[in-house]
C-alpha cells in the first residue's frame, strides 16, 4: 500500500502550535510533530495522551524494594544469622534499621534503570537505530508537522495544502511512501 505524507515546516514553535490548532479545528488529523525540543502544550492539541512511564517507575521501584527485602531477610536472618555483640538476628523487623539504606538504594536502582530501559524500548530508540526525522534541520531549529493522507480521508491533498499555507509555514513537501 502506498501512502502520501505531507510535511509542513515551521520556523517557530508558537506558529506551529497555532497552525496545529487551526488544522485540528478543521478536522485534519496531525500524525506527528518533529521538533528540536519539547513544545509545551502541543500534546493535547494533536491528541497525544500523557505517558504512563511514571506508573512503571513506581512498579519497578516496588519490585526493587521487594527483592531487597526478600534477599536481605534470606541472607541475614534465615541462611546465616550473625550474632554481633550479643545482638542476634532473630527477625527482620528487629534489625530493620540496618537494612534501610540498601532497601532505599536498591529501590532507586530498579526504578531508575527499569524506567530508563522501558523508555528506550517504547521509543524504539536503541543503539544503531536509524534516524527517522524527515529533515536533518528538525533537530536544529525547524518544526515539522506530518499529515498522512491515508488517515485524512475526508480531505484531499490540495485542501490540506491550502489550509497549511494559511498557517505561516516556511515550506511544504508531499512525499510518497510505500508501506
Amino acid at each position, binding site marked *: 500500500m502506498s501512502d502520501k505524507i505531507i510535511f509542513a515546516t515551521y520556523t517557530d514553535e508558537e506558529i506551529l502550535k497555532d497552525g496545529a490548532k487551526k488544522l485540528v479545528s478543521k478536522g485534519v488529523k496531525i500524525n506527528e510533530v518533529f521538533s*528540536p*525540543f519539547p513544545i509545551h502544550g502541543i500534546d493535547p492539541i494533536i491528541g497525544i495522551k500523557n505517558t504512563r512511564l511514571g506508573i512503571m517507575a513506581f512498579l519497578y521501584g516496588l519490585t526493587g524494594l521487594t527483592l531487597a527485602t526478600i*534477599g536481605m531477610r534470606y541472607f541475614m536472618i534465615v541462611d546465616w544469622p550473625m550474632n554481633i555483640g550479643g545482638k542476634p538476628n532473630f527477625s527482620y523487623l528487629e534489625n530493620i534499621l540496618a*537494612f534501610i539504606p540498601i532497601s532505599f538504594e*536498591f529501590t*532507586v536502582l530498579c526504578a*531508575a534503570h527499569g524506567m530508563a530501559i522501558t523508555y528506550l524500548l517504547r521509543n524504539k*530508540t536503541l543503539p544503531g537505530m536509524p534516524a527517522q526525522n524527515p529533515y536533518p534541520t528538525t533537530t536544529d*531549529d525547524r518544526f515539522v508537522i506530518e499529515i498522512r493522507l491515508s488517515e485524512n480521508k475526508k480531505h484531499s491533498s490540495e485542501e490540506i495544502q491550502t489550509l497549511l499555507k494559511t498557517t505561516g509555514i516556511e515550506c511544504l513537501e508531499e512525499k510518497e511512501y510505500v508501506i
Partner: protein
Amino acid sequence: MQKEAAIREPLILGHKTYHDVTEDVCRPIEDKAPRMWYILFGIALIIGTYGVGCIMYLLGTGVGVWGLNKTIGWAWDITNFVWWVGIGHAGTLISAVLLLFRQKWRMAINRSAEAMTIFAVFMAGTFPLIHMGRLWVGYWTLPLPNQFGSLWVNFNSPLLWDVFAISTYLSVSLVFWYIGLIPDFATIRDRAKKPVSKKMYSILSFGWSGRAKHWNRFELVSLVLAGLATPLVFSVHSIVSFDFATSVIPGWHTTIFPPYFVAGAVFSGFAMVQTLLLVMRKAMNLEAYIHTKHIEYMNIVIMVTGSIVGTAYITELFISWYSGVEYESYAFLNRATGPYWWAYWSMMTCNVISPQLMWFRKLRRSLLFTFFISIIVNIGMWFERYVIIVTSLHRDYIPAAWSMHYPSHIDIGIYIGTIGLFFVFFLLFARYFPVLALNEVKTILKSSGESYKNAPDSNSVH
C-alpha cells in the same frame, strides 16, 4: 508561553536564535581541536598514566607501599575516596534538585556538571577497589552464592551500604546524563558531514527523531529520574559518612556527620564545577550561556553550604567539650593543637573563612576571585577529610600506639594520577560531547534570552 519578571537578569546573553544555540555548541565539536586542548590532554594523560603505573605497582606489591601503619590503617586512600565522591555531588544536585525547583540557570551548566560528577565518581570508586589489594576479588563485595560455606556479605555494615550507594549513584547518574544527551547527539548527527563522525553520532543518538510523543516521555523520564536522584544524592554522602559515624573512634562517632558531609560534598562539588566551567566557557566561547549570573548563583550555593560546613565544625568542637567524654575532647583538642594543627587550620581557613567572602556582591561576581576561591575550597575540603581520618586515628586509646602518617610517593602518585585521569575524561568529554544541554537551553531561549525577554511582543522578534 512562560513569562519571567523583567528585572531578572537574562540567562542567555546576546541576540541568539535557535540555530545560533546549535552552532555555538556544535562548532567546538566539529572544528579541529585547538592546540591548547592537545597540550592539556597530553599533560593530563602523562599524569594519569603515572597514576595508573603507581596503581599497578600497588597491586603487584601490596598495600604496604602506602604510608600506612598499625595505628593509621586508613589515610590517603579513603581521604581521596571521600574527596572525589564529594566532588561528584554537584552534578546530580544541579540537574536533579534544581530541576525539581525549576531553576532555569541549571540548563547551561548541568551537562558538564553531570559529566564531572560521573568522572569524579569513577575516580572515587578506584580507591575502595584498589585498597582491597586484590582487585580481582572485588566482586566479593556482592552477595553472590559462593563456596565459603555460603558466607554472605554483611548487610549490617556501612561499608557494604557504601558499595550499594556508590554503584547505584554512579549508574543512575550515568543513565540520567545519557538520556539527556540522546537528543543532543541527534543534533550533532544531523549536522555531521564526515562519514565516520556521522556513524559514531548515529550510534550514540539511538535513532532519536524528536517526535512529540518521545518528547512527552522524555520530559516525564527526566522529572522522575530527578525525583529519584534527589534523595539519592543526599543518601550517598550520608552513607559515606556512616563509614565513620557508626564506628567507635573518638572524632568519628558523631551524629552530625550525615548532614555535615552532604553539605561539604555540595560545597566542594560546586567549587569544582566553578573551576572547570570558568575555563571551559572561555575556551569554548560559551560566555553568552554561562555568564556572571550563573557564576553568582553557584557562588551563593557555595556560600550557603560553606556556612553549613562552618557551623558543623564549630558545633563539633563545642559538643566534644560539652559531652564530657575525655577521649572525645582530646581528639578535638589534638586536632587543633596537636602535630596536625597545620592541616586543621588549613581546613578552617579554606572552608570557614573563604566562603564568607561571598557575601560581598563584588567578590561573588568577580570571575578571577571565584576561580581562586574554588581552588581554595577544594584544597580545604581535601584537608577536611584528611583531618577527620588521620587525626582521629593517629592518637588512639593507648599512647604507646600513637603514631604519625607520612604519605609514600605511591600515595601521592595515585592521588595526583586520579586528578590526571579525571582531566583526561573531562577533556575528551569537552571535545566530543555537547557540553551544553542545547535542546534544553533552546526551551528557555524565549523566556530567559536577552533578545526575547523584554520585547513587547515576543513572537515578532527574531
